[in-house]
């Protein structure tokens, strides 16, 4: 076979592959759709969850409330990134002098990683305002927001720590050998490499955080975010379509973020294969 002939046959196989994938997808999805639509409960389901009229009426205000979720997310994220890095650095410290820091950081991470986030949100969101301590905010949403920060910082600290430990000790040795202090070495050499490596797992935590902003709905009656708005509309209409609307709001953010994370991971993998540095 000549080279061009071989290339042609490969191309043919590729086209055949696309055809097979398309046909099998249409068949499988079609079958699922058929089973769903032909079920005796389909029309009831459609009316309850996919009610066009309810959707048209409720979606704009849910989308509007969703801006609140974005606000929670965007403000919590930088605080988490900073606080978690502090925790990770504390935990990676060496020497007996820093033992209290290591201990504190370890206890913190163990505690907040072990408690369900929803529990922290409830405890702070209801608990702190109930204490009526002068000078502290009494808004439920604020303490729910703080709870998300406390909880997610524990997860993110562990991601950072894994990154710090993945940097080969020879890097620290090389910088220390040049006379850099432990802190300078950590700051200029170890942490920058660690952070680059953990960007994809950090993204996964952000996606979770983005979703968990809905938990604030439970502790704030006045600052209405997307889920709470959906709940209220739903309760008024006796219809669940608003929840689908709220779900769409979250998906608009989380699906692109997931694809972006996949892309980052793939790029990292390719670079590792090419023997390049991260």
């Amino acid at each position, binding site marked *: 076979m000549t080279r061009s002939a071989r290339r042609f046959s490969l191309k043919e196989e590729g086209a055949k592959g696309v055809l097979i994938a398309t046909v099998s997808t249409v068949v499988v999805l079609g079958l699922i759709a058929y089973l769903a639509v032909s079920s005796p409960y389909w029309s009831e389901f459609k009316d309850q969850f996919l009610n066009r009229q309810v959707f048209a009426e409720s979606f704009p205000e849910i989308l509007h409330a969703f801006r609140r979720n974005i606000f929670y997310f965007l403000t919590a994220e930088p605080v988490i990134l900073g606080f978690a890095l502090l925790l990770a650095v504390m935990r990676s410290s060496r020497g007996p002098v820093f033992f209290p820091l290591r201990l504190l950081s370890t206890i913190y991470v163990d505690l907040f990683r072990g408690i369900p986030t929803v529990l922290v949100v409830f405890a702070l969101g209801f608990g702190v305002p109930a204490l009526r301590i002068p000078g502290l905010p009494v808004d439920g949403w604020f303490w729910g927001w703080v709870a998300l920060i406390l909880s997610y910082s524990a997860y993110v600290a562990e991601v950072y720590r894994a990154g710090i430990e993945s940097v080969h000790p*020879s*890097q620290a*040795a*090389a*910088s*220390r*050998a*040049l*006379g*850099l*202090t432990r802190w*300078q070495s950590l700051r*200029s*050499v170890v942490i*920058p*490499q660690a952070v*680059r490596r953990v960007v994809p797992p950090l993204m996964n935590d952000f996606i979770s955080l983005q979703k968990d902003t809905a938990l604030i709905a439970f502790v704030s009656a006045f600052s209405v975010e997307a889920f709470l708005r959906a709940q209220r509309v739903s309760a008024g209409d006796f219809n669940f379509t608003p929840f689908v609307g709220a779900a769409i709001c979250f998906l608009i953010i989380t699906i692109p973020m997931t694809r972006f994370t996949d892309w980052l991971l793939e790029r990292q993998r390719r670079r590792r294969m090419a*023997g*390049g*540095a*991260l």
Partner: protein
Amino acid sequence: MSEAIRLEGVHKSFDGLEVLKGIDLALDEHEVVCLIGASGSGKSTLLRCINLLERVDAGRIWVHGEDITAHGVDQNAIRRRVGIVFQAFNLFPHMTVLRNVSLAPMKVLRHPREAAEANARELLARFGLADKAEDYPDRLSGGQQQRVAIVRALAMDPDVLLLDEITSALDPELVAEVLDVIRELAGQGMTMVIATHEMHFARDVSNRVCFLDGGRILEEGPPDRMFSDPTNERTKRFLDRIIAAGRM
């Protein structure tokens, strides 16, 4: 001539395994000493002790008369004066070559960025790396990376340079360009302790050769005598093996 380095009775163990069993060694300024010996004889550990990357268990080390093994000594101040270059280069992969070289002068010596970078460029140019300043290390060949690592150590203007088998990780055709740099430094009077498996190089660059075996210096002397007429039986056997392996 004044004394650059003195070691007395240096011992070092790792998890009960004694790697250095009483090393005595003295180097004058501008002297070049090569450490030869099989892998595991303690060459690397010895160098790492002089740079304080390892703490000695017993014995003392002086650098220009200062006891660096004394309690409460400023480790970072010592390391500023004692440069070390590693077998695996250990360049910082997330920084350009220029940044690799200028980082320590800026952070440790507190040189302003412009001065540190100008000095770095000058040094890079001196070693034929001027056009690599803006590249990241993974774009460079092994020989170029190792030369950058040497320049990085030189940028701190050290009193003493320690070289830990700096050509062992290189492809054979890249060894010469790195050794030429060291020859040049020796010619300029840089005080160096060099752990190496390159016997030709050891012979023509050093003032003195020390044969390490099992954590001790078994024999030392001028290179010509060490290589042509070793007195110790173990030195003879080691050199015979090297010759048989075609490395000399």
